[in-house]
């Protein structure tokens, strides 16, 4: 195995681990915002790491350019989508979860 192949295996493995952590977070976290927190960060970095690993495995120039473009756009659009979702949730009045189920304060009016 060449050095590049080892780097690729490490990146793909780490990326897969991050995706797994993301899926785990979405499954077990208590509410909308915390789940979004897990999905938004883990997904972006996980996909980028997997694609970077594939990049190390080489291929022709077209393939490399396509992979770099995919990583570039994921890094722009994934956080934007997360931002839009979280904002929409806040505007429509979803109350953030608080440890121990304490009263998170007076119910907010939607759009406040």
């Amino acid at each position, binding site marked *: 195995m060449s050095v590049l192949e080892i780097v690729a295996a490490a990146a793909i493995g780490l990326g897969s681990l991050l995706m797994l952590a993301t899926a785990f977070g979405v499954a077990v976290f208590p509410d909308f915002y915390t789940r979004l927190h897990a999905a938004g960060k883990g997904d972006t970095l996980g996909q980028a790491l997997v694609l970077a690993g594939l990049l190390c495995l080489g291929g022709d120039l077209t393939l490399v350019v396509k992979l770099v473009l995919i990583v570039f756009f994921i890094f722009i*659009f994934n956080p934007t989508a997360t931002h839009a979702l979280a904002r929409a949730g806040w505007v429509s009045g979803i109350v953030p979860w608080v440890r121990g189920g304490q009263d998170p304060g007076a119910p907010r009016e939607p*759009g406040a």
Partner: protein
Amino acid sequence: MRSTDSLIVRYIARRSVPFIQLYALYVLGHGEDGPGGGFQGGVIFASSFVLLGLANGWGYGRRAAPARLLDPLLPLGCLIYLGIGLAALLAGGAFLEYGALAGSDDPEVRRHWHHYGLIGIEVGVMVTVSAAMATLFFEMARPARVQARVDRVGEEADRA
């Protein structure tokens, strides 16, 4: 600025439009030898206008894809398709037999013209599909105040 407005979403939506449209053309060009083609390319192309309308407001998206531009494009795509089909018929082949457009019996030349004809009808499909998808979205998502204005104009036209 309403509380639902987000500068980030508006900016990213505006800046991503040319990339989406370029990708639509890429999908169109791949229809011959892979997944893709006129329909998929057209839907992706229209989605750029849908994104503009969703992120920046109905009016902003409609100004980018106004009805006076989209309405003629709807039949134009069909006419491109039909025109290429009939051109093959006039050139002595069957309907949509693109090879006949070459006007030559050389199989190599006919093969090239087959590809040109195929791309031509895919462009026709893309024009109609993208215009139809954008029109569908903008007509169904029309805000109440715009609808009220349209209705008033229609009633005045009826009275006149």
